[in-house]
């Protein structure tokens, strides 16, 4: 799995994204000079809009959460989006 793990909690009006505890620890240990955001909430009016558009936003959400550039995220091994309730991997970036 990618080094950066983003967990998502879906709710009626959108979704909340958060770095996994181990990802936060990994970023802190690397001392990259960034302060990760506690969480990012993306609001949608309808569930359909949520399903249709959310996938396109994942890279930007990871950048917002980590404070890293897209290139830095790739250099760390990419990212995965996970449902923490059952550890289902919803998406995995294609990092080398």
């Amino acid at each position, binding site marked *: 799995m990618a080094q950066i793990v983003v*967990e*998502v*909690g879906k*709710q009626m009006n*959108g979704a*909340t*994204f*958060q770095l996994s*505890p*181990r990802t*936060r*620890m990994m970023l802190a240990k690397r001392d990259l000079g960034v302060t990760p955001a*506690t*969480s990012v*909430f993306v609001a949608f009016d309808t569930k359909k809009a949520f399903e249709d558009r959310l996938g396109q936003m994942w890279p930007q959400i990871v950048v917002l959460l980590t404070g890293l550039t897209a290139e830095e995220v790739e250099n760390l091994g990419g990212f995965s989006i996970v449902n*923490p*309730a059952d550890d289902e991997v919803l998406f995995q970036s294609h990092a080398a």
Partner: protein
Amino acid sequence: MSRRQNLYVGRSGQMAVMAELLWRGWNVAFPEVDVGEDVFVVKDDTGDLWRVQVKTATARVQKNGYSSQFYVALDQLRTPRSPDLVYVFAIRSSSGWEPFIIVEREALREAHEIYGAGSASKGGVVFRFLANGMVLGCAGQDFGIYRNDWSRWPVIAH
């Protein structure tokens, strides 16, 4: 303890937490249907909202203090929400309410998954707190900073 007794104890902790919040000047509300949070805390003038899950236990006397244990559902502990959940652990001893343990969901989760606090049990985690004088711990971890940590709800003068 019977199931009915559990209901009474649980509701008493909820009321104790609500009473403290009201005293501090924060509005509180019950969800009509219990779907994972016990109390909504609202700042009247801005509408800022907190979701609070109150867990209540009866203290068990130990040699130099007391212990208490709480069950937290794993999916609730792991799933981020907006606004996120704050746990308040209420402990009743023979002398009254002990200091509340107030900890945000993600901090509690980190304590469990990274530092080993709590033990897995039936789709959840059981946290056993030990209080000894001014020291509060869980599986060797210091939880003292969470004791009566009402800092996110400071006293408001209306």
